[in-house]
């Protein structure tokens, strides 16, 4: 597994929750949106195990709705537990990303200034 996908694995739940928070989406739509924001190497199939796990933990709920063209689509929306979880993940991410950014991206500058 590449480093990129390992890193992504830990935060993918948060990304999926963030997309669903904006509006109810179904699987294909969700994968399109993730790709659109730049997470192109999330292979499309990986969202289904994630969606199942989030449902099992009651962070999201799915509802089958008919569609005119294809098969029925299952639209997901956040539960209140899911909203809390997303908030926690966002806070944690912000707390982590600032020092990590400082370490990894600006590391050279720190050493140079000493």
């Amino acid at each position: 597994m590449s480093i990129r996908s390992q890193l992504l694995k830990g935060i993918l739940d948060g990304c999926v929750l963030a997309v669903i928070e904006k509006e109810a989406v179904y699987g294909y739509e969700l994968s399109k949106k993730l790709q659109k924001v730049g997470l192109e190497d999330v292979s499309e199939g990986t969202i289904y195990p994630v969606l199942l796990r989030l449902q099992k933990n009651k962070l999201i709920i799915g509802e089958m709705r008919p569609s005119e063209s294809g098969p029925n689509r299952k639209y997901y929306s956040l539960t209140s537990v899911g909203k809390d979880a997303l908030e926690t993940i966002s806070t944690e991410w912000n707390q982590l990303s600032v020092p990590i950014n400082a370490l990894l991206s600006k590391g050279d500058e720190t050493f140079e200034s000493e």
Partner: protein
Amino acid sequence: MKASELIEQNNQKRMLLTEQNEKYYTNLLLYIRTKLTLSEQQSEEVLMEMLGHLIEGQHDGKTAQEIFGNDPKGYADEIISHLPRENKRKNFIFVSEIVINLVGWFLIMRSIIIPIIGSKASEEVYIISSLLLILLIMVLTAFGVKMIFGLISQTSFDENATDKKAMIKAGLYGAGGFSIIAIFSFFVQEIGPTFTLPWQVSLGIGSLLLLISWLIKKYRT
């Protein structure tokens, strides 16, 4: 939307897939459906989502491999690990339906055989022997179902596996099971107290049980 409706829709929508994608998807589907302990509703929902995704992806020129990866078995196992189990109540109803159905056929068979043999003695029912025989048939049926589903899921992703091999295995099991029942009923004939159950009554009760199991099935799906 109920599981049975999803299955029906799945059958229709699957025809929209290209040959390659259909093969890939059907293997996934068989592998997931043959895991009997999983919630049927949840399994069918995720299968429908994946089918919808594949159909839309196909429009954009993508293949099943590109969407679900090159390791369909690994992917299916991951899906399965996140699916909830079927709840106990539903399992109980399902098993009851099968048991009632089996006993119903057992009584009907009996009502056909007795007039053929034509002896009054064969209307005697040995309670213990009969119960043992019914129990044996149930156990063998349960094992048979488990084995055949196991065979289907094993051969789902195995390119070399032929249907012929699986057929032979299933056939051998059927023949073996039948022999065991025949041998058992030959040797264990007369145990326990008896009562007389005329074939007409047997036919009546048997039909009633089949009707009940059919009603349970109706209610269940």
